[in-house]
């Protein structure tokens, strides 16, 4: 029990460091009104914290007997899409300004950051197909359903508030972080309820 507690602690530390780093640098970039390129450069170091975060997560999963080969593959794919997203978002933002993109080129650049997100959807589908452990798969499916429910609720309420001009417009891509937050919350609640 003590070793499990010890092995889980770094997950929280790395996770907190990642989120504080990402939001902190994003906030500071806005505060100092940094141009797009420096803004992205300062977010690279906290982005790299994802690597120890995922490693610590895998150690904790292994310690509580929940690390399957499919989970490991999903974690690796998660890292790939995260870095791919930052890279392609940078290419899209910088490219569209530098090239004064219009027409088909602008369409191409605009869709670039969406590609890693589509890869994430594919990775999640692959996990559900590849996971041989039915209990672990059921837990992920339950968490994904809860996350989808939260997303539908938030999007519907926000959408009507937006229709009546009570809240500002939120881009459609915000669905992904809302869903991811729901997935994380559901996983946390399930883990807590199992104790």
């Amino acid at each position, binding site marked *: 029990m003590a070793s499990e507690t010890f092995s889980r602690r770094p997950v929280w530390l790395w996770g907190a460091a990642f989120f504080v780093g990402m939001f902190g640098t994003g906030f500071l970039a806005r505060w100092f009104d940094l141009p797009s390129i420096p803004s992205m450069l300062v977010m690279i170091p906290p982005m790299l914290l994802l690597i120890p975060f995922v490693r610590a997560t895998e150690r904790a999963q292994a310690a*509580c*007997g*929940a*690390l*399957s080969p499919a989970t490991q593959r999903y974690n690796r794919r998660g890292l790939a899409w995260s870095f791919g997203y930052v890279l392609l978002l940078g290419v899209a933002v910088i490219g569209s300004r530098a090239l004064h993109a219009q027409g088909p080129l602008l369409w191409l650049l605009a869709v670039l950051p969406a590609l890693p997100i589509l890869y994430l959807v594919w990775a999640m589908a692959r996990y559900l197909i590849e996971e041989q*452990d*039915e*209990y672990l798969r059921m837990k992920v499916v339950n968490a994904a359903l809860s996350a989808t429910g939260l997303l539908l609720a938030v999007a519907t309420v926000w959408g009507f508030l937006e229709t009546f001009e009570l809240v500002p417009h939120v881009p459609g891509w915000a669905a992904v972080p809302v869903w991811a937050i729901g997935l994380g919350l559901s996983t946390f609640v399930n883990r807590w309820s199992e104790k």
Partner: protein
Amino acid sequence: MKNRLKVLRAERGWSQQDLAERLEVSRQSVNAIETGRYDPSLPLAFRIADLFGMAIEDIFQRGE
């Protein structure tokens, strides 16, 4: 559903990890089944029964 998995495992001197490896599932799955938090699918129940050389109904019984 109740089950005798923990007793059967203990009789053979197996840890949860040992049983998990024999069933090719995670240790967390074995723990969830033993503690009644998860009822296995029919295919997994058959694998468990085959491993212990028993019928499914001798391992799993109705009830909370």
